[in-house]
């Protein structure tokens, strides 16, 4: 949602719909405009009303002033009729009270004033009236400012206006005073003079000096005092005043007492509500017009907002649908931005869907063969197994592995290897078109075969695959003869869950590989047992390395030419605390598979060299080196360390390797052999005659010695062909300046035959079984003596 909202308050609002937001924003905007107009209108009306009332008040004020003056003059005239009357003056001069009071009585009636008094210079008051008024009147003539004829007094009885007329004879000999109560009647009379219904009120000070209404309607308060103070200060302008009946525009007219100071106030007021009443219709009209306008704007903006928002809402819905994986095509209705947005959205969503499909495919398929990958395969297996288990059906899992694929990859290159894998994938898909075929990685494939009621199907499929793969495949001009090994496991017997089933199928595959490749094997519980045993053995081996359970035995190699012991072959012995003596045949394969052979080989090398240093200088030590150990890049360093630690002369160390070291490629091996030879170490070729026994090896590297396998030696005395082979080997070695050692010599016939054929040295039970290290020196000594 955009944050650039016109009103800050709207930022807090979240609208569910764009059209609501637009409608509300337009509505509010218009409402604000209307409010502003209404406010200005109200102010104008207010000002107008105030001015009108002010003008009226001012007029009324001045009218009142005139009336006030006129009244004073009229009453003054009335009074002067009496004051100038000679008889009255005569009565006054003679202090004739009854005459004076009767004259006052007739004057009261004539002038229509409620009270008339006569005051003589000594302050005596004549005439009837309330006591306090009389008291107040007595002092007026002496306190009245020069030139004034009227004054206002406040008494307990009320506020009175006094009109003073002197009795001259010809100087003042007394004063006739009219007292007009400024009461409600008088105020009512005053109110009638105005064209608007003004309220006239008299204010007087209370005991505390604050102004209050004489009639009690207006209570004293500071605002009133301030208002009156302003008026007394001379600024007799109408102003707003808060009165008990509500706010009113008021004009205060100070009424002066005898001494000239204001003692009372005439307050002309006009209720504000009354002033505004005339404008009520106008206000209602404006309000109604505003509400009508607002409704129209709301309707209009809603219509407009709908027009804008509907396509956007459609986009919104489509985007949500896309988020949930459903694609909808939007209808492009217009050529404007929204229309273009819809078109872009269509393109974009199509792209997203397509990419999603591609990503999903990539995630679950192997790019090379296009077959499902391991992830897909595992999911499939995990979902298939419980289902078939519930139905009581079997699921068959076939694990396949190409035989010798690494060699093909290395010798022919990866493109050929990849082509081969594709070819294999095609073949499998074709043959197992009723099953799920997956490539698990490398040259591993797997097939999930559901139960189709044909219990022979797994076997038949495996056989069909083997048959198919037996024929060489032509890839990029290369005829490749490859085989495949297959392991088969069937649920639920061979594993109820995917992990167990896969593991067991792998075990079966392993067995198939062990059994010479190019075959299939079903899983058997024994396989599992064997695997368990191997794992146990592996653990024990690790412990043996840590715990020093290994030791070396030595079998003498007897030098036929010199008739003495020429050296010893170091042989590994494992004395397990509970297993007892474990023969190497049982653990070497496991050590090789697990890589432990490296550590073991290192130990053998160190130990052999260490012990050999104690022997006479002509006695060599021969150490077997496994191909794995030999291939290890740290191997030359191991030898160097063993020699330097022990101090053994390099030419007394003889390492025995088998042809199998050459399987990884001749060049690197030969380089390494030369390197070792350069250090002065002797190198013997072990088990010659078994395996390939390629003569090219003999040509590529000048071995120091060839060890003739005991299978030939065993038969050399009886079998002529064996004897011939031995002779051939010895002759070949002699020609190549290599020594020969015959292994496994068990009797004297064999010895004499071998000696006759020119064999350099022998090794075997005839001379000695392998012996403990501490016996070696003794044996060397006795052999010497025996020979001697």
């Amino acid at each position: 949602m955009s944050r650039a909202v016109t009103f800050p308050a709207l930022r807090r609002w979240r609208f569910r719909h764009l059209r609501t937001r637009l409608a509300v924003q337009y509505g509010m905007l218009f409402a604000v405009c209307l409010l502003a107009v209404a406010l200005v209108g109200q102010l104008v009306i207010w000002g107008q009303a105030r001015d009108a009332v002010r003008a009226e008040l001012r007029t009324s004020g001045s009218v009142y002033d005139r009336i006030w003056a006129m009244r004073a003059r009229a009453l003054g005239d009335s009074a002067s009729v009496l004051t100038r009357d000679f008889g009255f003056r005569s009565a006054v001069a003679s202090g004739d009270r009854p005459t004076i009071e009767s004259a006052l009585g007739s004057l009261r009636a004539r002038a229509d004033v409620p009270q008339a008094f006569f005051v003589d210079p000594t302050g005596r008051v004549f005439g009837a009236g309330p006591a306090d008024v009389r008291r107040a009147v007595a002092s007026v003539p002496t306190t009245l400012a020069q030139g004034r004829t009227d004054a206002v007094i406040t008494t307990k009885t009320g506020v009175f206006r006094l009109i003073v007329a002197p009795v001259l004879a010809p100087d003042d000999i007394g004063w006739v005073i009219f007292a007009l109560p400024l009461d409600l009647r008088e105020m009512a009379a005053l109110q009638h003079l105005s064209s608007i219904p003004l309220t006239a009120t008299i204010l007087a000070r209370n005991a505390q000096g604050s102004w209050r209404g004489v009639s009690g309607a207006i209570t004293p308060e500071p605002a009133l005092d301030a208002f009156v103070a302003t008026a007394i200060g001379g600024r007799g302008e109408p102003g707003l005043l808060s009165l008990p009946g509500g706010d009113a525009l008021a004009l205060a007219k100070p009424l002066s007492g005898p001494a000239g100071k204001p003692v009372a106030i005439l307050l002309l007021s006009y209720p504000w509500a009354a002033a505004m009443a005339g404008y009520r219709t106008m206000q209602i009209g404006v309000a109604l017009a505003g509400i009508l306008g607002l409704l129209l704007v709301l309707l209009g903006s809603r219509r407009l907002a709908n027009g804008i928002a509907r396509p956007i809402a459609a986009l919104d819905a489509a985007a949500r649908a896309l988020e949930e994986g459903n694609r909808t095509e939007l209808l492009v209705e217009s050529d404007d931005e929204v229309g273009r947005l819809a078109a872009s959205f269509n393109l974009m969503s199509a792209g997203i869907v397509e990419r999603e499909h591609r990503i999903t495919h990539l995630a679950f398929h192997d790019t090379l063969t296009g077959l499902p990958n391991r992830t897909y395969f595992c999911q499939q297996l995990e979902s298939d197994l419980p289902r078939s288990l519930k139905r009581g059906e079997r699921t068959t899992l076939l694990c396949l592995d190409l035989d010798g694929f690494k060699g093909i990859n290395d010798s022919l290159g990866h493109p050929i290897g990849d082509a081969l894998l594709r070819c294999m994938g095609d073949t499998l898909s074709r043959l197992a078109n009723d099953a799920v075929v997956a490539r698990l990685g490398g040259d591993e494939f797997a097939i999930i075969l559901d139960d189709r009621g044909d219990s022979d199907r797994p076997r038949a499929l495996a056989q069909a695959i083997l048959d198919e793969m037996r024929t060489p495949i032509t890839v990029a001009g290369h005829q490749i003869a490859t085989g495949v090994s297959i392991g088969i496991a069937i649920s639920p017997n061979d594993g109820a869950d995917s992990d167990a089933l896969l593991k067991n199928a792998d075990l079966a595959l392993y067995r198939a590989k062990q059994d010479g490749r190019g075959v299939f094997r079903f899983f058997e519980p024994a396989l599992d047992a064997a695997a368990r045993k191997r794992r146990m053995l592996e653990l024990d081996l690790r412990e043996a390395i840590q715990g020093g359970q290994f030791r070396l035995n030595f079998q003498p190699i007897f030098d036929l030419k010199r008739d003495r012991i020429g050296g010893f072959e170091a042989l590994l012995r494992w004395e397990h605390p509970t297993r007892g003596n474990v023969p190497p045949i049982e653990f070497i394969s496991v050590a090789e598979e697990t890589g432990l052979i490296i550590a073991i080989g290192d130990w053998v090398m160190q130990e052999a060299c260490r012990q050999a240093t104690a022997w006479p200088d002509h006695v060599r030590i021969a150490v077997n080196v496994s191909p794995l150990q030999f291939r290890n890049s740290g191997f030359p360093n191991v030898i160097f360390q063993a020699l330097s630690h022990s101090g053994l002369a390099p030419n007394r160390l003889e390492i025995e390797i088998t042809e199998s070291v050459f399987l990884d490629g001749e060049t690197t091996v030969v380089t390494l052999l030369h390197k070792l030879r350069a250090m002065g170490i002797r190198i013997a070729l072990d088990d010659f005659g078994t395996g390939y026994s390629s003569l090219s090896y003999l040509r590529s590297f000048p071995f120091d010695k060839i060890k003739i396998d005991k299978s030939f030696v065993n038969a050399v005395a009886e079998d002529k062909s064996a004897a011939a082979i031995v002779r051939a080997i010895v002759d070949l070695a002699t020609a190549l300046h290599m020594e020969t050692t015959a292994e496994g010599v068990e009797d004297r016939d064999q010895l004499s035959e071998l000696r006759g054929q020119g064999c350099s040295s022998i090794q075997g039970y005839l001379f000695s079984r392998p012996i403990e290290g501490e016996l070696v020196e003794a044996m060397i000594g006795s052999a010497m003596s025996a020979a001697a």
Partner: protein
Amino acid sequence: MPAEAIAATVSVDVRGSDGKPLAGAVIALDTPRKPAGPIKFDPPYEMAQQNIAFVPHVLIVPVGATVTFPNRDKVRHHVYSFSKPRKFDLKLYGKDETRSVVFDKPGVVALGCNIHDAMNGYVVVVETPYAVQTDANGHATITGVPAGGATIRVWHPSIRAPDNMLVQSATIAPTGFATTYTIRGR
């Protein structure tokens, strides 16, 4: 020389409430020792009506004096007095007619005309020879006053006091006495 024989001069200045010299104020001194013989002021004791006014405006006469009221206007006048010392009423009389009134009590007698309200005048009846009006400068000088205690009376219509009169005791030194009165107006 006995103190009584010394005749001092009393000099009085009268100022109005506005501070300006007040003309026409009457200064009268009462001394314990009255001079022998009747008191006499410059005659005639006459209060004429001339141009709708009393002439002189203020007339000082001794007690027992007879004052004539000649009418020198063409119109008629009705001179009256409601003052206590001497109330009288001279009904309408015409041109060149004279009435006379005896003033036998001391005091100020305000005169009016019942026809012409604007006319007023005063006859000041005194029992002392030491009475004089202030001149245009508000100044009055009385000579031959015996030194010693005296009561000074100052009268003027504008004085706001009983009978429009200020009364003050003073000791007249043989070398003379001078004072200034400022009338407190209102």
